[in-house]
């Protein structure tokens, strides 16, 4: 099995540790992981802003980069969802279609494809899990409170395998943090208010860390926490799952 690592543009530039932990984690499970050096971005910032018609070149680039892999794995629910729903290629339509069906967000790849049942990791802290909307409602990584159906959560299933971790309950289990891509600047006031409220829920429930399967939500919440000079930190789920045993 040959796995292509898709690292979202902002993780590549601002949070390389998340990508390193993702890579190491996949390698821990004996997978052969390749990282196409020519990758940039999935095109979601343009598409969600109404400029899907400008994503042709990023689509072609993405298709070229990842056509050769059995699976494509990414530490981002949002970018994965965008590729799954919107990747098209005029030059290689069959490859693009193939990629759409073989791209996985990291936690669903671990639970559904390689089906791991234990992780050698330790993270002895109180952690609040932020269920990012695109991952949860888009990729169905977890059950949604609006639906009347049995509960499940792929990220939580993995976190429960981590030594010493204490998952804190949240008052609003799956409310959006307000990042929303370009929404975070176009609708600055509402975006920040949503972020403040989301962070407050974690703090109220005594979290020391906020984690998620999406770094974009965490980047937004980190910005708010730092501005508030809060001791609460954000950590991507890949960083927890790859945290060394003490």
């Amino acid at each position, binding site marked *: 099995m040959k796995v292509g690592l898709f690292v979202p543009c902002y993780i590549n530039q601002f949070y390389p540790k998340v990508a390193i932990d993702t890579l190491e984690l996949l390698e821990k499970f004996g997978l052969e992981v390749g990282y196409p050096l020519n990758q940039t971005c999935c095109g979601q910032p343009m598409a969600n802003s109404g400029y899907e018609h400008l994503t042709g070149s990023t689509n072609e*680039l993405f298709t070229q980069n990842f056509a050769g892999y059995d699976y494509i794995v990414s530490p981002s629910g949002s970018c994965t969802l965008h590729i799954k729903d919107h990747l098209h290629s005029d030059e290689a339509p069959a490859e693009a279609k193939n990629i759409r069906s073989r791209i996985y967000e990291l936690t669903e790849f671990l639970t559904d494809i390689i089906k791991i049942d234990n992780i050698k990791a330790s993270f002895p802290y109180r952690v609040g899990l932020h269920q990012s909307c695109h991952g949860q409602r888009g990729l169905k990584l977890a059950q949604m409170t609006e639906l009347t159906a049995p509960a499940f959560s792929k990220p939580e299933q993995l976190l429960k395998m981590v030594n010493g971790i204490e998952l804190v309950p949240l008052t609003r289990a799956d409310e959006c943090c307000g*990042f929303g891509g370009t929404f975070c600047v176009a609708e600055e006031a509402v975006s920040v208010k949503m972020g403040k409220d989301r962070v407050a829920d974690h703090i109220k429930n005594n979290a020391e860390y906020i984690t998620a399967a999406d770094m974009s939500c965490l980047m937004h919440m980190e910005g708010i926490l730092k501005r508030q000079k809060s001791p609460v930190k954000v950590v991507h789920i890949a960083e927890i799952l790859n945290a060394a045993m003490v």
Partner: protein
Amino acid sequence: MSAGKDHAALAQVFNNDENRVDWHDETLWFVRAKRDRASHGIPDWELLRETASQIKHNVLSNMHNYLVQFEENALTNGIKIHWAADAAEHNAIVLSILKEKGIDRMVKSKSMLTEECHLNDFLQDNGVEVIDSDLGERIVQLAKEPPSHIVLPCIHKKKEEIGDIFHEHLGTAAGESDPQILTETARQHLREIFITRRAALTGVNFAIAETGEFVVCTNEGNADMGAHLADVHIASMGFEKLIPQRKHLSVFLRLLTRSATGQPITTYSSHFKKPRPGQQMHIIIVDNGRSIQLGREDFRNSLKCIRCGACMNTCPVYRRSGGHSYHTAVAGPIGSILAPNLDMEKYADLPFASTLCGSCSNVCPVKIDIHDQLYKWRQVIVKNGYSTKTKTAMMKGMTLALSSPAIFNLSGKAGRLALRYIPFAVNNGLNPWFKQRDMPTPPEDSFTDWYKKNRKGEKP
């Protein structure tokens, strides 16, 4: 879209008072939580949603036949039927019915369609007084404001503010804010209205093609009070209110109030089939853009809406921006996919007033793909040129940078350097991110840099 009047600007004003935002958010979240308990309390909720969605699907696919069937049956029942192509025609029909009877005062039950048509203003300009009889509607009417929510029209007002309005208009004591006293005052005031008005207008929740009757749902019984006492009953309905058969009501009535307020059923679900002796009953069937929406394949499903308001209560953006920030009669997620159909330029901002979190689609009792439609509207709006030049230039620049790995790596490096060494270049008031959030601490190397140093580059 006039400058400074878009959702973001109006929401920013709403957010100047953070305590009020908190209160608004908590109040609506309370309703959402009630909706959850009510929907989780019956075993077949998801089946009901699917069934309702399919029934509406059938209606939308056979609109013509059901409308003809409804008209025939309603005429047989003795109801007068009017067809209105747009808001102006609807309003003119209402006025002509009243004029024919020499009526210049009317009582009205809640109808978002008449809000959409701006009926009250029109009638007032033509010398007809209209009193809204739904308590929340009456309050916003006295305050000279439009409703901020389709089910809870004055949810944005605190009881103290309502007390002030009642003091000014209905003579309650200054500073009185006891809900029971205020409600009793409204009740006495409205009772006098019900008794003296010869014409009553109601909305329509469901119109049944099979029988030619219609159903009006209220919690206060105000539609019934108005209609049962008046000589003339006018019912205004958008044509999408049709359902094929009476038995289908059982599906919708179970869904409607559970979704809206968390109640098992409305207090009054009243069936109107024919005028009582001596009474006139009119139904105005309104298009006002609906047939255009029906013709837009991507947006057709928005016409399934039964106006429960669940998408507003669950929407984290609506809860923190208030209904008025949507500057349209139907606010929130559903309003944001209905409004651009009416006027794409005026409402170009609304599909962007969302994080696309998807909660709206999940609570929708008729399974409208609201957040997918928001995404699709964005594409349509930009393609039709209703975007700013700045945004288009920014997106083109971004596309260029992201299309080339070389430019991407270089600009990424430049960006990280700028953040590290000249943070004031980005950390200033002109950067909307920085206004209330810190920027990420930039690392020295990107992941690509790290990978080149630590692993051999892969070219599959």
